[in-house]
């Protein structure tokens, strides 16, 4: 966690930087730096602009190590720290576990009522879930695009 904070602090002061700069200025291993920067890249805060190679040192073997250059594309300080769990989080988590579900299943298991209808409609419109058919009067839905434990970001009113 300490390394996380230091890297966020480093990124907030630079617009472009190399992996090696992060390693040297913070004093963490290459692997750890790559993991954390990879996470930020996946979350959409960074992008890789070019990749250089670090020449091997004496007694080092294998291919030359990558030294990617990153560009900041979104303010890292805007990154939200663990927000309280909301209805949409619960619904996304539950539908990922169930894979096939009806709206009643989601209401029963999450305890959310109105949000279920609105959110499933939004997810369906954005292609995350699809209707498989009907069971009595209810639609059966299936998850078609699983993007991981964090729910997809769908702007309100889209």
């Amino acid at each position, binding site marked *: 966690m300490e390394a996380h904070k230091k890297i966020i602090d480093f990124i907030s002061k630079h617009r472009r930087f190399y992996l090696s700069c992060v390693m040297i200025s913070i004093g963490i291993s290459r*692997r750890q730096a790559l*993991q954390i920067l*990879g*996470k930020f890249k*996946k979350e959409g805060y960074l992008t890789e602009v070019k990749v250089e190679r670090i020449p091997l040192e004496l007694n080092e073997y294998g291919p030359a190590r990558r030294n990617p250059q990153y560009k900041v594309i979104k303010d890292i300080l805007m990154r939200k720290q663990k927000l*309280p*769990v909301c209805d949409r989080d*619960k619904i996304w*988590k*539950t539908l990922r*576990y*169930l894979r096939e579900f009806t709206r*009643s299943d989601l*209401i*029963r*298991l*999450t*305890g959310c*009522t109105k949000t279920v209808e609105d959110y499933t409609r939004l997810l369906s419109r954005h292609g995350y879930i699809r209707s498989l058919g009907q069971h*009595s009067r209810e639609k059966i839905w299936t998850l078609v695009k699983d993007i*991981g*434990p*964090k729910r997809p970001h769908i702007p309100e009113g889209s």
Partner: protein
Amino acid sequence: MKKSFAITNNVKRFMILVNDILEAPVGIERMALVYGDPGLGKTETAIWWANTYSKDAVFVRTKKLMSGRWLLEELVAELGESPAWRTSDLFRQAVEALAGTKRIVFLDEIDYLTHDARVIETIRDIHDTTHSPFIFIGMHEADKKLKRYRHLYRRFSQIMRFDPLTKEDVVSVVKQICEVQVDEDAIDTICSFGNTTVAVLYRWAERFERIARVRGLDRISSGDLDNKKFRN
């Protein structure tokens, strides 16, 4: 039909088990096994518990072909980390994310992993290193399959079998989910069919309400049920 989660005796026992695991003092293992016949609501109970009482519970559904690396990768991803490439790093990531927290990990369909000692022992390693609560959810003979791994089995401080629903459970569930009143003789009719699970009761509640709507009834008795038609 009321869209609420039905509380049965099994659910109450499950809640006590999870509380005991979470409150276990240092020195008492925090592993538990929950198993039982299909359709009794083990997985749904775990999901409902996670949604109601825990903000950061992790739920991993195991797969038949799962290897140790695959399991670690899924666990790390569910813990909100970006999975590393090396297995050793994955293990370290899982330990770092779990150590010192009360994040509860549910492993569903644990029977699938019983064929591979390395996978099972990896879970034991993570538990021993982090002392995090792990709850295994398995099928009806999961306890027998896991007994082969004596070091793991010894760590189960709680073992719970999801029992088939009793008549008392059926009455309670129907009362909780059905919007029309159901007479006791109708309940007896349901029970006489055998194989009464929570999933079956949800279907029955739907039928009761349909019959009540079509025939304009406010109570359902066994006379309103055409046994041959409704037999499962």
